[in-house]
């Protein structure tokens, strides 16, 4: 917009030179941006490139970006029962944590947003602050708690743990969103005789879909990434999530088979990258709405 405006007002020579300069600058900016983006993506590109090379080409000097020989062997070697189990575990835990954290977060956020009470702002501050709670410190007591409840080495331990460390963000995201929702619809429904619960479930939640999605994606990504709970709260392969499983099982066995390691890394990244690729816009809308306002 601004560009076309400047272009149309070409009156004085100084304007013209400014426009020219501007175009040259714009060209520079394209170069800079492209270069920066490429630098950012080099590690990922190198990971992809290596993952398709046979092991002996991996150590080639000088290194080649486009593999001489393309092999899918590195990927094929990864598809075994263990990786399948780990992936399934991670999926189950991440989906449950995303659902739990988002749903409970939505209830709390709605309460803080719609009820006027003195504790509200304090609660929000507490949630923000709790992001800085040292996770290992939390884990010590959680460990004892889970032992007592018999939850060690269950999905529940991981889901609860991941919910605990993500629910503050869910609440923040959703509260900001609810604050921006017009209340007229809710009030009208309420006056028509719907119970507050019905208003929340059938009117508010559907309207909040973008924010719910943003929260769910955030929790999913955190859960997919989380290492410490997975290492400590599970003790057998059939319960372990991906990061812990990879650390414990795969990294020891590779013995320097870098191309296979890169293939594994790609496989682990794919689910979150795909999810994120499709929902990025929704996610950004949800996140930036809160961030820019707050």
């Amino acid at each position, binding site marked *: 917009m601004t560009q076309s405006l400047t272009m149309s007002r070409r009156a004085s020579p100084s304007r013209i030179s400014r426009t020219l300069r501007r175009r040259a600058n714009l060209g520079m900016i394209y170069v800079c941006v492209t270069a920066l983006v490429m630098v*950012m993506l080099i590690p990922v590109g190198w990971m992809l490139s290596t993952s398709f090379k046979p092991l002996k080409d991996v150590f080639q000097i000088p290194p080649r970006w486009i593999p001489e020989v393309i092999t899918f062997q590195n990927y094929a070697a990864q598809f075994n029962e263990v990786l399948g189990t780990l992936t399934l575990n991670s999926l189950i835990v991440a989906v449950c944590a995303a659902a739990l954290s988002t749903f*409970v977060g939505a209830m709390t956020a709605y309460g803080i947003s719609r009820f006027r009470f003195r504790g509200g702002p304090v609660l929000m501050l507490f949630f923000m602050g709790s992001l800085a709670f*040292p996770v290992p410190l*939390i884990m010590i007591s959680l460990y004892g*708690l889970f032992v007592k409840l018999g939850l060690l080495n269950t999905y529940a331990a991981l889901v609860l743990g991941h919910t605990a460390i993500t629910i503050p963000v869910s609440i923040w995201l959703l509260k900001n969103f609810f604050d921006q929702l017009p209340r007229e619809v809710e009030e009208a429904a309420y006056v028509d005789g719907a119970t507050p619960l019905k208003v929340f479930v059938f009117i508010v939640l559907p309207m909040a879909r973008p924010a719910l999605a943003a929260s769910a994606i955030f929790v999913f990504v955190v859960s997919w990434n989380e290492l410490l709970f997975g290492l400590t709260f599970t003790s057998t392969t059939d319960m372990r999530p991906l990061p812990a499983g990879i*650390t414990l099982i795969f990294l020891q066995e590779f013995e320097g088979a870098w191309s296979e390691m890169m293939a594994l890394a790609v496989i682990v990244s794919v689910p979150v990258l795909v999810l994120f690729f499709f929902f990025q816009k929704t996610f950004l809308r949800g996140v930036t709405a809160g961030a820019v306002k707050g």
Partner: protein
Amino acid sequence: MYSIKRHPYFFMSLFAPALFLVGGLLLYPIVNGIWLSFTNASPLRPTTDFVGLGNYVYLFEDPQFWDVLGNTVFICSVSTIFCTVLGLIVALLLDSGIRFVGFFRAAVFQVWVVPWIVIAILWGWLFNDEWGIVNHFLRSIGVVEGQMAWLFETELAPWVVIFAYSWRAVPFVMVIALAALQGIPKEIQEAAEIDGAGYFNRLRHILLPLLQNIVMTAALLEAVRFLQEVTIPLVLTQGGPIGATNVLSLFTYKAAFTEWDFGLAAAAGTFWLVFVIIFAGIYNRVALRKSA
């Protein structure tokens, strides 16, 4: 809209699950953790006794602990500065009127979800001293000869961690800053441009002050996240060489779950908590401007 008096049950039912979850899984562990820091708690011991400040004394007498603190502050602060400055630069470039902003933003933002465990594996390969592409690049431009043992030199290994942290966090700062930039009314910028203010003048006097609070908050969030991060030190460097990448999160985790010394780990965790609170307080005063 609702009031507690008229809708007490609705109010309670909205808060009950969170009360249960947050109370049981965040608040209780923190309070209990602080209590444990004054005991000799360990799952290897049948009983737990009160030991007063014993754990803290032990911790503060340990020269390694002070090294760990130094490493933590260095790695976290440099990473925060890197990712904030870079994220801001990318955002400013993207907001300068070029096209395909959405595409560039999406390309960079994908980095934000690359799992940490993948970064740990990948960084080991990039910085491998014999075959790593980083060393190859440095050799090819003649900066170094032979090999640079990135992961075995105490001066270099922290930088490997810093690069990983910054790389992963740039997209977040970029997205937040970009959203903030796009929220600044165009008239403000145009008015300044017509007044003849050059780009850097506008940047300094208009854009940066408007962005300051948002970007500094994003930076604080990232700093806190770096403090928590443990995958890279645990998997890639294992805290070495000579403890150069041993950070507070790794130290605390290892004390708790490889040495099963809950009391000591709780003391380190409590110290960490107090440190963050004090830091955030100072940061709030110095880095954020009060809304006018």
